[in-house]
């Protein structure tokens, strides 16, 4: 039986699939990390955003072979309800989520932005967040949350 090794949130896992398996479904179905969401399967909505060596990537079209030897960060790698990451804390304080389904991807896109640009302008935020769709209309709160988190970091 095929096996592939991958590193998720700093931990190495061996999964019972060949390396052409899709990262999204391995995360969700083999590793039971369901915070990464399926939205479109064609890179257009951002719900499955994960960080691959710190850069936003789309798990829905990423084969395991593309992350071999790389560090993948999912929403589970940031913080949990008891100890949220500062960005997650900013999200909670801004009351950003509505249905919440897109928010894992939004938070990871924001993390990639702030990691590379700790004090983004409004234009920087719009640009970095322009591939993540929210249908509930929480953009205004997400922007507030990013600014609040950026303020804390600087």
């Amino acid at each position: 039986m095929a096996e592939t090794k991958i590193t998720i949130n700093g931990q190495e896992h061996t999964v019972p699939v060949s390396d052409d398996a899709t990262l999204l479904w391995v995360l969700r179905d083999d590793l039971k990390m369901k915070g990464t969401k399926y939205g479109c399967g064609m890179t257009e909505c951002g719900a499955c955003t994960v960080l691959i060596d710190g850069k936003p990537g789309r798990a829905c079209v990423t084969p395991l072979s593309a992350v071999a030897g790389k560090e993948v960060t999912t929403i589970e790698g940031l913080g949990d309800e008891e100890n949220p990451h500062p960005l997650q804390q900013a999200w909670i304080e801004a009351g950003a989520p509505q249905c919440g389904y897109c928010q894992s991807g939004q938070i990871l896109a924001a993390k990639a932005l702030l990691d590379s640009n700790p004090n983004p302008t409004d234009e920087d935020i719009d640009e970095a967040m322009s591939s993540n769709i929210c249908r509930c209309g929480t953009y205004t709160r997400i922007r507030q949350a990013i600014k609040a988190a950026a303020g804390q970091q600087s």
Partner: protein
Amino acid sequence: MATRITESSLSRRSLLKASGAAAGLAIAFRVPVRARQATPEPSPDLGVVNSRGIDYNGSIVFHPLGNEVDAYLTIGEDGKVTLKTSKMEFGQGIRTGFMQIVAEELDVNVEDVIVDMGQTDVAAPEFGTFGSLSTQMSGPVFRQAAATMRAWVLELAAEDLGDSVDELTIESGVVTGPSGSRTFAELASGKASEREISQEVALKDPADYKIVGQPLPRVDLAAKATGKQVYGIDVEVEGMVYGKVVRPPSVDATLDSVDFSEAESMPGVVGTVHEGNFAAIVAERKDQVEAAIKAVKASWTESGSTITSETIFDVLKETADDGQPLDEEGTAGDPDAALANVEGAETYTYLLPYLSHSPIEPKSAVVDVREDGVDVWVSTQDPFSSRAAVAKHLGRDESEVIVHGMHPGGAFGSKIVPQVELEAATISKGVGRPVKLIWDRIEEFMFGQFRPAMRIEITAGLDENNAIAGWRYDAYTGGYYPEGAKVPTGSASDWSANIHEIYPDVAETKTTLYNGVTPLPPYFWRVNGATSNTFARESTIDILAEKAGMDPVSFRDTMLENNPRLAAVMHAAVDSAGWTPGVGSTGEGFGLALGFDANTYIAQVAKVEVDAETGELKIVQFDVALDPGLAVNPEAIKHQIEGGVVQSLSAVLREEVKFENGKLTNGTFSQYAPILMRDAPPVINVTILSDPTQPMGGIGEPGVAPVIGAVANAVYDAVGARMFRAPFTPERILAALGKDTATPES
């Protein structure tokens, strides 16, 4: 105290037992329910899952509180208060709101109230979660149930302590009197008692509220910010396999033949299903089913529909039925006669496209069909509709089916319709295993339902006093689906069509809704027709204001004398925006629209910038004022209003389902192009004029309806372009400015 109804005692007891509330104290109450009846004659395909889904066209009949249905508010032996409801949370904040309502009336801490949602074997068949009705309709019942429970625990404590009830106080679930105190846990301990809800028990004076009216953070924020919230798509059960439906190239196609021979031998494939118009393949893993479906060969006969997203607006009028009057009893006037001699009376025609709900979580379900019962896990707005449809579809008794209603990842009306769970049920029955079915994005765009296109014609003019002399309102919507259907599917296109809902004194009005043919299945989308009707009405009011030589606010004031709550929110929104309105197009870019929906009064002022060279429209600011009566959670209300504004702005700026030959030509996110963060207004100010003595109004939908009208009026104020067709693309704005566009409108 109400009399017991014998027939319901048994079911109530079994419900109580099933709810795990046998120990402790339970208040039995009744909730508003809706009748589940499919009025149109079933089409031949009904009962077999087909490419367009089934059973969605049952019209909704609202029933008042019944005698036979019971639900419970309980205090367990641990002192926790539990409310079981079939209402669903999907970000509107009703879970938190219900917790506040119960905690307030019962004087417990909010965190000691558990709201258990969506499980059909323990909850009562309340209305589904739509129409901004949850707090409005169930809220008062829960409040009364909690008040009844409060009276009961006071009685028990008085007995226990030897004090009189009026010497006792309750704080944080502890009853205290001169002789000591008792916790709710102590009072419920060792009991297994049940009482009826009492309408005689007095409710708390809203002036004494400490919890209701507080802007509490919604209780699920942390789970949603950490990826821990569980949605329907996240459900996994033992032995589960993945299904995938074989889809036609266009809607309403008929399956002629299907060939699984190549697909069947692919890795992981465990079975296939073919039943009438429905075919599906099943594999162990998601990747495997995705690969296998590509190898399935199917041939279809397509409907050959010739209607397109451009011709639909003529089709709606050409195929219109005789129409249904929407005037209140005895108020229809004769606008044609009234306007016959009015100079400058005109007809204004507004066009609104089909819209897609497109929640980010597509439709998904896990269904396990077994000999001994059926379990359904589905992201749904209405678990009991789901149960009824699955039972009927499988020919099982409803008591054999348990629907585990799951938190939807966005819904907007699309997750009322039982569809994906019926498909998953067919597949599970076929392969004898629990099946997970997740629609992909193409399926989500093409094979669900749509907010129908509308064509609205308003004929109006002013009398010599600059009052409206007559108002003829003809709304055309798509109801007859599929083409050739004899009974229209309701999609609430009539909502807010009657001008008297806003301006009660306009004379000589006549309002008619006509249903025509629609090639795409119509269904509820957010506030349904109210968005379209509000756009048409509020645009025309602005046109008439200018003709009257008045500014939009003063002109509306002349018509709102008998609608003071709406007048109040209008002025609050105008003040919030810092707008001094002028007559006609002032170049300022402000626009106003009013709405009334779900017993909530709302006014919105849009501030826009329009580039007259490129036609680009930018939303700069939104100011909203609303009066929802008793405001349970102002923070949740603000967020709902913000979300409603932003989603509706997406429809203003971009959204338009395009189709020809029965297929969508922009059925992906990149083509449909909902708005992104860069398009959303940086500032949305929400002012709540709350009157705690008034009934609780709905929140989810009122914020959606006025947006298009407010933006249309703002575009006119900015550059003098009157918009009659949504969305307001740069091409359409340039055309409205009388400028040629390089590319013809498509």
